[in-house]
């Protein structure tokens, strides 16, 4: 009869996870705090902003460690994606030109918006009027178009 192994042991993360464990925990705690934060005096659409932002930060953290800094192994990277630590769809967009800094997937979906176009934050700064201060409704992004 096989011994009962703890759940954590069954899917042990690959080597290198312990390097990130603490920081991932910090992200998780932030996310919990954001979800539980009272949002009575916030406009409805703004309530979701912190959650989008933390999710973006965490995906960015893992993306940079793997692609930019080459500091984590592919098995670890894939394990992190599989376990929901990063958003593979968003990361896929970051590899495309002009989308290197994309804030969230919502902002490039044309169907949901009022004008059947992408979000204001996707408009290049050069097209905007000078000093026009923008902030998108879906995630609070102030502009994420990258030209290079």
């Amino acid at each position, binding site marked *: 009869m096989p011994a009962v192994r703890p759940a954590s042991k069954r899917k*042990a993360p690959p080597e290198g996870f*312990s*390097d990130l464990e603490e*920081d991932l925990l*910090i992200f998780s705690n932030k996310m919990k705090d954001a979800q539980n934060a009272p949002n009575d005096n916030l406009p409805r659409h703004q309530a979701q902003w912190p959650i989008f932002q933390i999710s973006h930060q965490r995906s960015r953290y893992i993306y940079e460690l793997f692609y930019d800094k080459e*500091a984590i192994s592919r098995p670890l990277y894939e394990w992190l994606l599989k376990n929901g630590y990063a958003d593979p769809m968003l990361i896929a967009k970051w590899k495309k030109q002009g989308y290197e800094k994309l804030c969230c997937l919502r902002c490039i979906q044309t169907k949901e918006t009022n004008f059947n176009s992408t979000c204001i934050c996707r408009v290049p700064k050069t097209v905007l009027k000078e000093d026009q201060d923008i902030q998108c409704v879906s995630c609070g992004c102030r502009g994420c178009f990258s030209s290079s």
Partner: protein
Amino acid sequence: MLKSTYKPSAAALQPLLPGWTEHKAPTGHTYYYNAATKESTYKRPAAPFAPTAIAPQVNLSDPNIANAFLAQNAPQPSHQSSHRGGFGGERGGRGGFQPRPRPQPTDKPRSKVAIPGHEPWILVYTKLNRRFAYNPVKKASYWRIPEKLMPAILELDQARIRQKAIDETAPTVTTTGETTVPNRPGAAAPATTTEPHDYDSSEYEEVEVTDSEDDDPSRPKRQRTSDDPPSGPVEFTEADIAAQLAAMNADYNSYPSDSDQDEDDGPPPLSESDATALFHDLLTDLRINPYTPFATLLEQPTTADKLTSDLRYLVLATTRARKEAWETWSRARMQALKDERARQEKTDPRIGYLEFLQENATPKLYWPEFRRKYKKIDCMKDGGAAFGDKEREKLYREYIARVKTSVGERKGELKGLLAGQGARALNSATVVPEGVPAAVRADVRWVVLDRKTRDEFVEGYVRGLGPPPEDEGQGTREEEEAAEKAREERRKRERALEDRERAVAEEKRRQEKRLGFERARLREEERELEKAMVVDKKGLRGQLAGERMEE
């Protein structure tokens, strides 16, 4: 020798030549750049105030002339009989230099007086109690008084002393300063006539500061000055003198200083690379996890406190600079960890294999099943003669057997493994898990606990150990030399930081002292003002009383 450029030069008074712009190097130096010619220089390319204003450095590299400066920089005595400490006679080069204050860039003319009988020559006194002879026609200045002017200036000095004596006996007269010193050859002052006429004193020596053509030693300078034809009246303003003085100071400042004792230099700046290295040292010393995002470091109160309370945090002035330094450090550190792991796995194929077991082995699978399932995985393939299938099977069985035991038992076994390591391999400085020696990582006891439990346990264990042994005889000579060099460089930049902190503290003390003086003086003035007010009121009352009496 670039020290003198750290502080705003007196030449700042002069406008830059067209085409030149002023810039600040990251190290704090001011430098000048000409976009058209692509030239850059530390020396301010300023418009010459007068044809003679741009004096070449060569004049000042002459020890005699340099000494002349020193003599003038010494606090000016109230009269010429003071001992000059032999500055003027010092001909043996710069060996006899005394620590001296650099001429203040803020020096400016305070007063001037005509030299009787030698028009248009004037004697200019500066705020710092220096004085020089100035010929507004030639627009030439001389820190040392031309000989032909000496008798007249002596007269002036004697007159000044007499005036001072008169002022002292009549305290109601406010001190006038040199501006109003008249030439009073007739005034009697027996006390001062006994003073020796110290013609050899440097104060009266002629040194041409601002004229470049007069370098030829064969040509007697005195001749030249005495040949100057006095011409008609010339417009001469305070601004003229100020600019002239600025030119003289600029020359002085461009003179390479070999003295580190300048008091007014401000904190010695750290070089950019030293500052970055110090910041890197801080991150390393605090055992910052290189994988942690920079923003997280500053958000976590304990880490942020540790970082910001360290002097080395402030050697970089902006958060942006700190982030850049962190980025470099973190990348290098992560790369080093990666390399170290790769090296260890190469050293011993068992390390990689055991890690694979830790992730994938389960008591549900017997060895043949396990081998079949993972036969395509690298670490399951042939590892050479030293590590074949037999060895893999043995380790697999050992692993499965141990996994079935309690966590406490497994911890006990791991502790036994760790205890067998020497102080060089395992000590309080060991970074867990990457710093753990290969001998441990190649042992099955290393992988039988889940990583988190194990690393916490090992971390606790190494914290209880002593520091690494002093002698590092195990490395190669090159490694030792590199390590020693790194340590020496670190000591050096730490000293630079200490020096800077000391200078900053010193400057602060000085400023507080100055502030204290200022406040005291202000209080004094306020008291006097109050007194004056009281007197005025009394006077007024008296006057009113008088008026009433008249009525």
